[in-house]
């Protein structure tokens, strides 16, 4: 775990830091104590069983849902996104598990939703639909094997094509953090390879990535570190090079526990206190 400690000592190397995030829905405590650090330019994998709270963590992180308590820091600065637009303009793009596509809009419209290209000035701004269609085609063809028409409604796309659209949308902007909530869940073999290729190329471009996946082999192939969630808590962190599938399974199911697993948050997950 020395690598993380090194990374944590200089705060500029942590793009995003989450500390003690909590969120309840009525009596369901979806997040009890979630802490995690995304090192700059690295792929962090977040794993955990269904209902562990991974998607809730993502939604709290990017401003879709307000957390009840806890702290989020972006490049060392505390942030509190109350609207997803704030998260997006701060450079965080997300592929949500439920994809957040609008069925009756076209592929191109979905790709540019909230980021439409306009021309004109002042209040007279009109959509540049041709430009958006052209760029949309380029964005999607990087990812999809069967490239859908960018003018067709999302309703008509296959599950995999939808996922490609949602992914293209998140990857298409010059953002600094990309969060992918199970990006290959509905994909075929070739598409999965493309997505993994895309994740690698995003990483090479220097983007910081949070990847949620149930596919441990994929996690081992792509990530630099793995964070494990169980019942609303982040319970362990491993460098990918120091772990293996068996250990990950054990950590996810709770068969193997980290030393101080129960009430205390894993100190390894917290950044070192800064000396000022």
């Amino acid at each position, binding site marked *: 775990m020395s690598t993380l400690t090194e990374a944590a000592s200089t705060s500029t190397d942590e793009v995003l830091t989450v500390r003690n995030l909590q969120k309840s829905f009525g009596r369901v405590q979806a997040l009890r104590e979630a802490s995690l650090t995304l090192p700059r330019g690295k792929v962090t994998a977040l794993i955990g069983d269904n209902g562990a709270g991974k998607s809730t963590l993502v*939604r709290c992180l*990017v401003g*879709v849902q307000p957390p009840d308590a806890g702290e989020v820091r972006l490049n060392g600065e505390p942030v509190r996104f109350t*609207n*997803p*637009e*704030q*998260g*997006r*303009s701060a450079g965080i793009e*997300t592929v*949500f598990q*439920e*994809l*957040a*596509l*609008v*069925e*009756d*809009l076209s592929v191109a*419209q979905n790709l540019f*939703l*909230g980021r*439409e290209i*306009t021309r004109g000035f002042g209040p007279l*701004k*009109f*959509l540049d*639909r041709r430009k958006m269609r052209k760029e949309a085609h380029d964005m999607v*063809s990087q990812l999809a*094997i*069967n*490239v859908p028409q960018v003018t067709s409604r999302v309703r008509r796309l296959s599950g995999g094509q939808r996922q490609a659209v949602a992914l293209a949308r998140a990857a298409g902007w010059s953002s600094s953090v990309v969060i992918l909530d199970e990006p290959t869940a509905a994909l075929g073999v*070739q598409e999965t390879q493309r997505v993994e290729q895309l994740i690698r190329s995003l990483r090479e471009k220097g983007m910081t990535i949070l990847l949620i996946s149930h596919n441990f082999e994929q996690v081992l192939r792509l990530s630099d570190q793995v964070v494990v969630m169980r019942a609303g808590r982040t319970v362990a962190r491993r460098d990918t090079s120091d772990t293996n599938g068996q250990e990950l399974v054990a950590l996810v199911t709770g068969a193997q526990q980290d030393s101080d697993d129960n009430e205390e948050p894993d100190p390894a997950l917290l950044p070192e206190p800064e000396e000022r």
Partner: protein
Amino acid sequence: MATTQAAPAATPSADDSRRKLSELPWPELASTLGLIALAVIFAIANPGYLSEGNVSAILQAAAILIVLTIGQTFVVATGGIDLSVASTMTLGAIVLGEFYALGWNIWLAALAGLVAATLVGVVNGLVISKGGITDFIVTLGTLSAASGLALIIADGKKTTVIEPSLIKLSVNGIWLFSWAVIIALGLAVIAHVVLFHTRFGVHVLAIGGSAESSRSLGIRVWMVKTGVYVISAALAGVAALLVVARVGAAEPAANTAFLLNSVAAVVLGGVSLFGGRATIAAPVMGAILLTALVNGLTRVGLSEFYQPLTVGVVVVLAAFLTRFNR
């Protein structure tokens, strides 16, 4: 799946044309086709039906409904409904009449009516989007409140508005189209541009399709929602001017038929009542269709008691047809 971007092998053959046919936007075409069918039937039954004079009269009679329908379309496109359009129009008309009676210039009085109407929309929009109360209940409330306010302001009496420039609105014009009709169609063109060529328009449809997705992409759902109710109310304010011009007076009448017909025109126009799918042209055609239907029934001598029944049947039928085409 051999090489990279191999597009799915399309078979350009006989079933291509059939697919083209099934890909036509039938719900959106229904009102236009219906209007054509209606015109043919009534023209056979009554030769004068398609005369210039009568067509012009139909359009003139449709102008107010067209304006209200455009506003209703924006609201329904977000998955909402505005039950207050007609009473908002009445309130606008009464305010116009009051200021006119005070000696204001007619256009300034019309502006006052427009502002009053728009305020109703602001209330609707904010209570629905910020207060989180169902559109149906909120606009049902403002339906009652706005017409109540109109009664109070007018003290239950009508104000005669005899103003040459206003009369010209319904009498003068270009060829078949009176100025009132030209205003209504002009607003329809603007509305079309707003819906399909601006960010706001895309967001209206996006919210109607999935408010949740739109929100998670950073669209300010509450602002767009407020926007559509304001648009609807402002258009009701324009309709107020047209109604005063047509009647020659500002009356605190209930105008319920306008409300029902605006929703009916939207349905005829193939707009999904769940939101997310809408055009402007088709509901406008729907508004003309309803007016042409009533006009035709009158001309063939069907007692006016039959008209609401016929309109009702046509609307439910249209809703049924568009449902099958989803």
